[in-house]
């Protein structure tokens, strides 16, 4: 009874996102941006400073950051504030792996639009409510905290029709965390096989996208993209609850359009 009374106080805690932007979503660094699009004479050397190879130097000396590999360590921002800067914001997930590379997408707008349309067609029946199944494929443990946070009263994703399910048979959306540990390859495939079609797959976090710091380990694949047909990529190390929520809404074609991280 006492707990019931306390429960009544919860209403005011919940974020209004995505209907309105949430001030918190812009209060912490969510991604790295390249602030100087010009050619750098020492581009190779700058790229070498990144522990995961997320910084890429084009042959002409321009720099790119692959957010799918970035573990947000901040080494680049500290060493070269003239070239890199933190960017806040929740809307860092994308429906195409290539668009995680900034400042410039390697994809044309048409192919992106086609991809979104195809995804939208698949998820049409999910618009109102969606059941999420989570699988850990070799996380460091923090990713699960952030996924669980979606269900706390602050994010309260049930208000958006997003629910967790323990049964693969009732799941519409597979949310995968972790660096793609080889031991999880078979269990992942089995989980996918047990799910009804159509299915949407989200690679949640830099580890799931690329293996992160563990890419190249004898025990991991570089993320889960080779094992699963990933539809949405949610960067972050771990991906923050806002990024995860953005990824789910993106998968459902319900993402807010203007709250994105500017490129």
């Amino acid at each position, binding site marked *: 009874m006492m707990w019931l009374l306390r429960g009544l106080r919860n209403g005011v805690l919940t974020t209004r996102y995505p209907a309105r932007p949430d001030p918190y979503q812009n209060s912490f660094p969510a991604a790295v941006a390249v602030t100087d699009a010009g050619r750098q004479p020492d581009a190779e050397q700058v790229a070498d400073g990144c522990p995961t190879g997320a910084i890429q130097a084009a042959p002409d000396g321009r720099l790119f950051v692959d957010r799918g590999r970035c573990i947000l360590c901040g080494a680049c921002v500290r060493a070269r504030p003239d070239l890199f800067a933190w960017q806040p914001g929740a809307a860092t997930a994308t429906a195409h792996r290539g668009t995680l590379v900034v400042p410039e997408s390697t994809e044309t707008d048409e192919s992106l639009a086609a991809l979104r349309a195809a995804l939208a067609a698949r998820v049409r029946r999910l618009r109102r409510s969606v059941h999420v199944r989570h699988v850990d494929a070799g996380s460091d443990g923090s990713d699960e905290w*952030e996924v669980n946070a979606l269900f706390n009263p602050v994010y309260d994703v049930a208000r958006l029709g997003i629910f967790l399910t323990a049964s693969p048979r009732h799941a519409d959306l597979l949310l995968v965390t972790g660096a793609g540990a080889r*031991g999880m390859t078979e269990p992942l495939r089995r989980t996918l096989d047990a799910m009804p079609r159509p299915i949407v797959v989200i690679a949640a976090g830099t580890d799931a996208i690329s293996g992160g710091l563990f890419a190249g380990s004898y025990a991991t694949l570089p993320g889960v993209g080779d094992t699963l047909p990933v539809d949405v990529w949610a960067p972050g190390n771990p991906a923050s609850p806002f990024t995860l929520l953005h990824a789910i809404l993106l998968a459902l074609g319900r993402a807010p359009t203007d709250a994105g991280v500017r490129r």
Partner: protein
Amino acid sequence: MTTSWTETSPTALAERLRAGRDAGRRFAGLYATAVDASHLRLTALMATPGGGIDAVDALAPAARYPALTPRLPAAFWYERVIHDLFGTIPDGHPRLDPLILPLPDDATRPRPGGAPCPAALDPDDHVLARRVLGTGLCTIPHGPVRSGVMESVEYLVETPGEDIPHLQIRPYYKHRGVEKRFEGLDLAGGLLVAERVEGVATVAHALAYAHAVEALCGVPVPPAAGLIRVLHAELERIANHLDVVLRLCDAAGLGVAVARFGWHKERILRLVGRLCGSRFGRGVVIPGGVSGPPRLSHTALGAELDRIRAALDPDLRLLLVTSSFLDRLRGTGPLPPARADEHGALGPVGRASGCRDDDRVSRGYDAYPLLGPAMVDDVDTGDALARLRVRVREIDESFRLIRAAADRLDTTGPLAAPCTPDDGRGIGWAEAAQGEVLYAVHVTGGRITRCAPRSASFHNLALFGEVFTGDILTDFPFVEASFGLSIAGVAL
């Protein structure tokens, strides 16, 4: 606090450690390092009461050595890992099942500390199947894909139907090759890996790693850095303890309490994020000190702490008088003090069973000696309720330590000392929310040649299968939550 290094033979090692145990030392860990193609060096770590860590080396043939487990049961899991990683057979080990890496062939193994290993080593579960079937037991698997949002791990209930079921634990599914990953990195690179060994204990792992490296640098950490380290370590502790509380409430079906504690935990993570830019305190600790001052003023931090406590304390008080909840925990998953002592159980799991050890007190570091943390030392019923009580008291003490650290903090001076390590091996420790984290770091020419992290989760999970006395299925979520462990730190 210091580390002493001594050497013995592999045949004398078990006896030597046993004698140390009988003299009141705690077995704290065992790791191996490849020396050459035909040898490895075993290093056992013993914690002295109220003192540092004694490291005992023994050079052993790579093929086999006399197992320690028969004389030192706490080495059981450690020797299985040595077999997994090196293919070395501890002769006389009671049950050498693969734990973190099942491989068909003893010759092709990662062998940390040695030459680069093959680019891919695929775990082979046939190795496990053979062993389990060979014992003629009936088993019920649970996992590795769990219901709910949890880390992957498989539990096998052996001999179901018996009063005391036996539980096999298989964390290998999420093995990431962490130890090999450290090798060849510089100190800054190693820190990034350490922060991700067990991500929910980022700060504790970063601290244990930094302490190991600092032991090779011989420079004291600036006092202000020590205070900032405590601040973040204690916020991490509160977040982890709240996670346990909310998982216990979830197991008991207390929906409102789950929501409330989920909110409190979120506020702590947001506070951490506002202090340093990462919700998990990543990037705060660096070898030699910390990366910068807190990004919140003393006043703003104090005000937010007050707000969190004003909301949290009544909920904790209410939880501790919610009798339906307490009844569910009382007597559940008991770890007898004698067993906890024999194993050297760590953290709240150990303290709830009468193991009076806490690295912040016994082997103080950073600003802890200055702030005088109080250890919970009057609980010994060893059940899930005792573990909860320890954590609730520790949350209270953590808030006090954070306030005390913030009050003393003056960030006008340097926040990091230059840290250039001598070649050698350093041992470092820190008390995570889960218990003591230990790091052995070997450095040559500024590069890591071997790094062996030992999480409290690894050490304590070995006890998990022993504490089921009632109906395993109904008790499971309570016992699992009350242990409060992370599989990432076990599977490595």
